[in-house]
């Protein structure tokens, strides 16, 4: 790894990348601004001193970190999967004004499927990772991941139908 960015360079990057990272995370946490802020903060703080000045694509670098933070978040929740998770992190949706109705609905619907399904859906359908890679991330076999994805898609469609378009 090369030398880390200095303060000025990092701050310039910060101004540019903050909306990108925040937008990436907000969509994945069901529009929960508080949670998105938390994860955004974790993303940037973990990049402090670790972002090489020579990195080709700081945006890709930061999105990779953001994805890890998101996966870690759901994994941590996953350890308590048998504990009721009643929508606190679905609360307080903060919709960007230019989001379409479909964007709001699918984001809300995605937030309503359970964590394991949400993680699988996000990694495969939003982040476009192949099933094998998703399986490796979520520590399941490929067949179990495919099964999970099938159920997740069903759950998403059901949730989507129930989400009011307001």
């Amino acid at each position, binding site marked *: 790894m090369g030398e880390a960015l200095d*303060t000025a360079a990092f701050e310039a990057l910060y101004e540019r990348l903050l909306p990108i990272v925040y937008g990436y995370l907000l969509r994945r946490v069901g529009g929960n601004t508080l949670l*998105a802020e938390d994860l955004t903060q974790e993303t940037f703080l973990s990049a402090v001193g670790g972002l090489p000045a020579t990195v080709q694509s700081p945006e890709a670098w930061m999105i990779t970190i953001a994805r890890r933070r998101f996966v870690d978040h759901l994994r941590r929740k996953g350890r308590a*999967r048998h504990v009721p998770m009643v929508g*606190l992190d679905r609360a307080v949706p903060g919709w*960007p004004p230019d989001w379409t109705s479909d964007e709001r609905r699918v984001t809300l619907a995605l937030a309503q499927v359970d964590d394991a399904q949400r993680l699988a859906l996000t990694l495969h359908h939003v982040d476009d990772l192949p099933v094998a890679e998703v399986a490796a991330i979520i520590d*399941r076999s490929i067949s179990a991941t495919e*099964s999970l994805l099938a159920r997740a898609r069903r759950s998403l469609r059901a949730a989507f139908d129930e989400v009011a378009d307001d």
Partner: protein
Amino acid sequence: MTDPVELLALPDRPIAPSDRFRATLRRRIRQEMVRDGSTPAVTTGQAGAIGEMYPLSGPQQHRRWRPLIAATLGALLVVIAIGAVGLWAAFSNRRETPSQDPATSNGTVATSTPPEPGSYDGTTAVLPEGFSPIDVTTFDSGLVILATDAPPTDDGLPSVTATLFIAESDTVRPVVTLEERPNRVAWDGSNAWVAHFETGRVSKIDPATGHVLGTVQPELAEPVAGDDRRFIPNDLEAGLGSVWLLTARGAVAQIDAADIVVDRVVPLVAPHPSDLAIGSTRVWVSQSDGALVGIDPGSGATTTYPLSHEGRQVVASGNSVFVWGSVDTTSDTAVTIVNEGIGPVGVVDTGSAARGIGTIGDRVGVLFEDGSFSDVYYSGVELGPPAATTWAPTARTGRGIAGALLQLGPGGQVSTIGLAAAGGAQIPVMDVTEPRPIAERYVSSPDWAHLAPPPFENRWPAASVWTGSEVIVFGGGPVGAGGQAYDDGARYDPARDEWRVMPPIPITVAGEPSWVWTGTELMVWYSEGSAAAYSSEADAWRTIDDWPLSGTFYRRAIWTGSEIIDVGAGLAVEPADGSARSIAPAPAIPGRAEAVWTGDLVVLSTGGPAYRPATDEWIDTGPNGLTDLASEAAWTGRDIIAVDYESGVARFDPAGERWEALSSIPFNFGEWLPDTQRLGDTVVVVSWSGVLAYQRDEGLWTHFAFPTAVDASIRLIPAGDELYAFDGGFHRLETPITAAPLRMVVRDVIVDRPPGWEPDGEPIATATATTVRFRHSNSVSECTVTVDDTDAWRALGALPPGDVISVQPVVGGKPIVMVETSSGSGVTLSWAPLSTKIAQVRCATSQEGEEVAAYAWVPWQ
């Protein structure tokens, strides 16, 4: 019509966060860059405000919080809210230099209008001017407080002198001033005990006179440096007939409270011991290396449970123990809940803003950075109203995060309840004077024999069979991930408690395996073309070429006693040479159905079609209500019990050749492939919630103890009337699974509705949503079940003697009330809509005039 799956593929778009967040994070980044040393110092502006809104990551955040207890020097008054007492005690094993004024830290430990110094009103004790608390504990009618008026020491050690105060009636009175840097206080029911940091001595104090009734000085078995054998106190607690002194130097001293002598010193591993709590049967010590140690007060014997996180603090309530600490090296924290009879039963994420765990009365909760306190409860094990019986929403706002968080919305309505992350809303202050009823589920703590470990690593899903005299475990793959399937196995001889490695399998091992036990051979195949058969008698494999079957992840092949039938492939196969014949064409078979042999029929775990070899015909057994994904079933000898991984249960009656849906498993059930096996007339199921037994005659589910932390890799191996378990180690159930009857706390509690608590939004209740259940013991003679439905209590029904009512407030994350009775001919279900907010069961008991009551909280979503 829009397919939401396709919408997921929409590209991400930049979104500007709030200006507040943007500015705050910028400051945090600057701070981190300075701290990290990656850049010269930069002016940080109002740095102090940042940590309040966005917790620091890593260890430094704990340093920020630690001074909470001692950080009162310079304050004229110290106000201790009784609600923080348990937390206070939990936090008090800190020795850092004070740096934060508690008056500004949060509303839990300070009030803006403090009462008179030296006063106590039952909820707030005010120390005399100039004193700051070091440690505090409770007794029946008040508080025992160790406090000092000495200035802080330069070396960060406790002050040389400290005064013991008793807060009782309406005053806070000094009892005695002690030296040797007193730093811990405990109460044994009659007297106070004080531990001294400087010497490790422990003194028993008469609270009325202040006389020191005796002093004892435990010593480490081995000196730490030179001849230093002092117990440097980390925690001091009284309970289970003794006084217990913990030192991070690696020991617990058990002190006889009457004779004031050391009964025993239990060695632990330094420097990991961090905190101590008194359970109902054992003393518990959390360890920073990720372990919880239970100490038997009678023998001093220890039991260690590994944790998935650091053990920094531990508290106990009822028969449950709660260990809190950081997860890995992140700023996130978690609580592991341990049932004293069962072992670890669950882990609750408590987020990055949690600052400690403590008790308020019989509640256990997590204190958060903003000063809010949230109950931690575990719906699969114990439950009770998870929030206050009296409600007093405050205007406090902040980042209440995780735990069992009850949250009032801006309008005062209940908007959320449960375990999750959020913040920014008002947090109710809980009235700790009201008791909380606890309903316990059926539990069993059978003995397990720990046998010789297998000669290979843990694996899943391995072929595992009982041959009649030995256990064979073969194949499988790495636990928890993909990877190359294992090609080795071993057989266990229970007479000699020995494993013998099997010879190498002679076929290529790849992909999903299938296997059957024919009574003499273990047949294993992976892909069409070849199979291998292991003879336990000859201890040798043979190869069958031209094998017509492929392996499947879900069990499709069974052994009828004369041939292998694979209902998925539509073939009956002769194991000797692989010759096959087609069976009658199958109707559509659900993709993940598992096949079970009844002796007459090949039945599918998902219900529907079943195959009868004798007549080569398929019959329809009807639906069983289970999901067609990941169901599992076991033949009990007279019927089949099937479960799915959404906790559904169904029974197949071979006489009527039909399925019937049963009530779902009354424990929350995790999402993984269950393993279901027969043990005599009991069906045993492994799930996220632990190992469960279903006693079919009683319709009773029992959560029973397993030797290690339960995870997906456990394989149960029935062996006649015995049960073996393979989880990397190897165990045998030594005693029957005997369900302990449910006990409700006999206490009549009035639950007040929270003010301003009105529904918000459309109810989501339907008759198919999840449930709340009540269950009571047979000692109860009559119960009535009512729900608070909108504005009035509404009776759902009367329960005759001996009925079973189960309690479950939230299942699968969805709240609803279901009342289930199991009298007479069957199960009766009554559903209450989601507009219900509180469900109540009142039962008369065999004791005249005695009444039991339990409540389940039903949140509005």
